[in-house]
């Protein structure tokens, strides 16, 4: 049985805009171990929350943890976003749900009950935007032996992982500054697939014109993706951090739809 936390939302409406829950493979933990938890956002229909680069407006979701002293937690692995066209603007974010993945490390666990709490600070928008916070908590119990994650929970975490962009070393991406655009040369690993499209999501803000037309060409086994720059950008960075999404998937089985890479920019 999946272990779900209780969740509270700081909303006065009958139906909260965003509810969160902590998902773990097991509620038992041991000392000097590590395990993953997911924080799942359930977003009210027709509303959306934002990715780390929100696009032309909005605000990324932040997480603040309260942990026992024997616990430490990683930065989140962030699911790839979707592009929204809102009032002639492009936003990057999530509808319905989004699951962020965190790695917890334990040191010497002395207490039997170990309560963790997470507060998510979010901005949810439809036409209007409403900021809010949601809190979820979960208790982990100290055990002498590691309890394996059951099959159902493993499947849920596998599903969550497919939403997290992978750093695929076998896919070579180069970036070139060209006029008012950046040209990405993408050499997929393995068999060359016929991608219907590649969506580009820059992690850094203020560099690209999100609403402008990107072009994708296939030439000599390489995909050439041209993404227009924002005319009001500042100086271009040395390195671009970006997510590339394709509905066909980057791996042979087509499971992993998004990759994330830091790419040196050739100016």
């Amino acid at each position, binding site marked *: 049985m999946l272990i779900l936390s209780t969740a509270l939302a700081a909303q006065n409406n009958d139906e909260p805009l965003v509810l969160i829950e902590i998902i773990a493979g097991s509620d038992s933990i041991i000392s000097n171990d590590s395990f993953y938890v997911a924080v799942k956002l359930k977003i009210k229909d027709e509303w959306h929350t934002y990715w780390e680069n929100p696009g032309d407006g909005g605000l990324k979701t932040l997480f603040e943890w309260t942990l026992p002293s024997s616990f430490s937690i990683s930065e989140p692995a962030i699911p790839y976003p979707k592009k929204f066209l809102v*009032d*002639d*603007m492009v936003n990057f974010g999530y509808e319905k749900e989004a699951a962020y993945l965190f790695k917890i490390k334990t040191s010497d666990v002395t207490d039997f009950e170990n309560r963790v709490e997470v507060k998510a600070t979010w*901005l949810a928008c439809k036409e*209007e935007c409403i900021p809010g916070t949601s809190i979820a908590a979960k208790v982990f119990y100290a055990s002498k032996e590691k309890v394996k994650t059951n099959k159902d929970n493993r499947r849920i975490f596998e599903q969550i992982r497919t939403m997290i962009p992978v750093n695929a070393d076998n896919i070579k991406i180069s970036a070139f500054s060209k006029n008012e655009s950046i040209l990405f040369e993408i050499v997929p690993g393995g068999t060359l697939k016929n991608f219907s*499209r590649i969506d580009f999501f820059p992690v850094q803000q203020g560099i690209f014109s999100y609403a402008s037309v990107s072009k994708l*060409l*296939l*030439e000599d086994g390489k995909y050439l993706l041209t993404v227009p720059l924002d*005319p009001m950008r500042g100086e271009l960075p040395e390195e671009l951090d970006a997510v590339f999404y394709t509905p066909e998937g980057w791996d042979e089985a087509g499971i992993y739809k998004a990759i994330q890479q830091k790419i040196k920019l050739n100016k």
Partner: protein
Amino acid sequence: MLKYIFTLAAVILFLTNISAQIKIDAEAPKFTLKDSNGKEHSLNDFEGKYVVLEWINFDCPFVKKHYNSDNMQTLQKEYVGKDVVWLLICSSAEGKQGHFSNNEINKRLKALGANATAYLIDEDGKVGKKYGAKTTPHMFVINPEGKLIYAGAIDDKPSTDVDDIDEAVNYVREALNASLAGNAVKVKTSTPYGCSVKY
């Protein structure tokens, strides 16, 4: 042979030039708009003066942050007192968030104690799109020669939290102070943050 595969949906094609008309250190696009009292204002009317353009939507939480804290009103008062023209521009289309009747606008301006020169109504969004206004707030500073010297966020703390204001670097203040003192503006552009403009 090149194989053309994909372009983004044509529905957003028209947006490609949303901010193509503005450039830092170039002439700011001219405009004429009516204010919430029905009076026309043209950018030309303010030649020889600094002009601040502030894109606004009273119901946006980012705008509320800066008005409920009195941050924006204080800034307006400080610079209007130095002969700077401060224009609020609302590009919310009719029926969308932030679009109000003139009476309602004037009521809200009074209740908030706004110190701007005028509240201009751009309900067809033409001026907003000329300037590439994306968020509320989105700030632009024009110098007495009519050149754009700053475009971007109000400050460096993208949040809806009033507590962040004290520690924030206010880019508009920095740009105006530098330019009024005859110095170069250090941060000329920044990424604006806020709600999307409701075109």
